């Protein structure tokens, strides 16, 4: 059993295709693992595998943990919120349908910050997810359930969504690979909307090869999402072994940014690895990136306040205060159905869009967004990739940042600029570091960003670097 769970997705799919491993046995093993979830990573998981017929395809027989923000026909979909508790969507998200078409099968739906708003998973209406490396710490968010499931040996791979770092940051804090593709690479159809101009689906996996496999299956244009374009030429398994001739840009602003000493040490060691592989390190300037958080926390809440207007107690989900008039029903339903962080962002977004403030906040933030995209464009004229730590810290303690929303927001400092520019970025585990204040050593992620739709190149470089780093640490008690 342990042997089966230790395989990567690529290894397992090859064994199943060759007939060396039975798909039913493999699925059953993961089903058992998911059923033993002690991390609160799952909100729902398959109970009865039934007669399992394996579809042929690159992911034939592979179970996938799916963030509960993706609509799945007939199975509960909550987006981590009470307001649609019990909702069973009448259709399935395109990303999930594509995984299914490639032979994969949904293993369960993973816990998340309510409507993907959060960086610690503590905003879930269904309780926080625990970090498998240290159960007193957060797994990151908002795709924390997906990250904890993969890192904690409860799923071979998972998908999540990233609006300002929600795939990359939990991947970093849990010691796995997380990829946010270019905006438009994967359809958003059936993905419950948070901030539509930023939301993007992506894989959370044990290694870069698995991330490529999942991306290959999910990417593509979808008539149901007119903003989807797909990746020209598709995605192949990466195989590059060196980084010769590639230039990696380190933002000069990084020198004055404050982040943990342990994170800095791992980051610098990874830069040295890049050079050992023949890559070149250069300095680049991203002068507007420091305003990323400010712009993001105007744009994302503004879009959210509009997207979340649909939860009004009429068409789906809960209703409360139905004995009063219509306005009372709306206000009561939303007061009781939404959690604190969601209310905070709806308020922030509504304020930013309200008469008299629109230009000063939303208009200005969209201009900053242009500037950040221009910064990256200029950087990519000089270098192939931009690299940063994924998160300024290792996993922090449960409850450590909940009292101060702004300190929580600042966690997204390194991941938000790429989201605003719409470019792809990956987090790969680069080492372990002691948290500030001491304690067990925890994973540190290394972020690599590339120009729009350069996913193949990004995966190739990440693959070479991953092999050189050789990160093989696992949380205690996890196979493989």
């Amino acid at each position: 059993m342990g042997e089966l769970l230790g395989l990567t997705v690529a290894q397992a799919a090859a064994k199943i295709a060759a007939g060396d491993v039975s798909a039913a046995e493999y699925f059953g093993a993961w089903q058992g693992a998911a059923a033993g979830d002690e991390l609160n990573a799952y909100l729902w998981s398959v109970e009865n595998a039934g007669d399992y017929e394996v579809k042929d395809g690159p992911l034939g027989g592979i179970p996938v943990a799916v963030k509960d923000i993706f609509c799945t026909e007939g199975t509960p979909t909550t987006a981590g919120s009470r307001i649609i508790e019990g909702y069973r969507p009448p259709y399935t998200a395109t990303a999930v349908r594509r995984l299914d078409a490639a032979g994969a099968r949904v293993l369960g739906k993973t816990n998340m910050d309510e409507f993907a708003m959060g960086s610690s998973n503590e905003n879930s209406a269904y309780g926080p997810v625990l970090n498998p490396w240290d159960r007193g710490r957060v797994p990151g968010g908002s795709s924390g359930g997906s990250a904890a499931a993969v890192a904690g040996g409860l799923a071979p791979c998972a998908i999540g969504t990233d609006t300002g770092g929600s795939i990359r940051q939990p991947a970093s804090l849990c010691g796995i690979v997380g990829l946010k593709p270019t905006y438009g690479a994967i359809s958003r159809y059936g993905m419950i909307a948070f901030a539509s101009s930023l939301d993007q689906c992506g894989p959370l996996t044990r290694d870069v090869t698995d991330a490529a496999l999942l991306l290959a299956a999910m990417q593509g244009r979808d008539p149901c999402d007119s903003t989807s374009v797909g990746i020209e030429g598709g995605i192949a398994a990466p195989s590059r072994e060196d980084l010769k001739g590639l230039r990696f840009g380190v933002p000069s602003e990084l020198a004055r940014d404050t982040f943990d000493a342990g994170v800095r040490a791992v980051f610098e060691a990874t830069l040295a690895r890049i050079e050992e592989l023949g890559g070149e390190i250069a300095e680049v300037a991203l002068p507007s990136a420091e305003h990323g958080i400010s712009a993001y926390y105007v744009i994302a809440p503004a879009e959210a306040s509009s997207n979340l207007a649909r939860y009004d107690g009429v068409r789906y989900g809960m209703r409360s205060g139905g004995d009063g008039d219509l306005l009372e029903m709306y206000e009561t339903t939303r007061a009781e159905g939404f959690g604190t962080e969601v209310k905070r962002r709806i308020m922030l977004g509504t304020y930013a869009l309200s008469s008299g403030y629109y230009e000063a906040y939303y208009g200005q933030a969209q201009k900053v967004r242009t500037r950040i995209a221009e910064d990256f464009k200029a950087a990519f004229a000089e270098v192939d990739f931009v690299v940063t730590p994924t998160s300024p810290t290792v996993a922090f303690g449960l409850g450590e940042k909940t009292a101060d929303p702004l300190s929580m927001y600042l966690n997204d400092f390194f991941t938000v600029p790429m989201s605003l520019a719409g470019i792809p970025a990956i987090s790969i585990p680069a080492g372990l570091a002691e948290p500030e204040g001491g304690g067990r050593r925890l994973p540190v992620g290394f972020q690599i960003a590339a120009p729009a739709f350069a996913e193949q190149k990004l995966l190739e470089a990440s693959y070479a670097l991953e092999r050189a780093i050789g990160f093989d640490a696992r949380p205690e008690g996890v196979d493989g």
Partner: protein
Amino acid sequence: MRPMIDRDQVLHVARLARLRLSEDDVETMTGELSGILEHVDRIGNLDLEGVEPTSHVVALENVLRPDVPRPSLPQDVALASAPEPLNGAFRVPSPQADA
């Protein structure tokens, strides 16, 4: 400097957002939103005259499809998750309290 948000503005915005806030919520929200806005306000001072705002990162225009009728969700399926379906429709309280 722009004024940060006050209690009356919080109540006004809550009404716009169709959110009922408790007394405690109003108090907390006023403090927290002011703190966040103070940070966000830094971009207010940047000179961005002449910069085009970005509303969408991928250059796309006029994504069209043929206008052909196709099946949509059946009525019973569309109503299946509604809190109060009634005779094939969504039932809602009267817009006026005394109606």
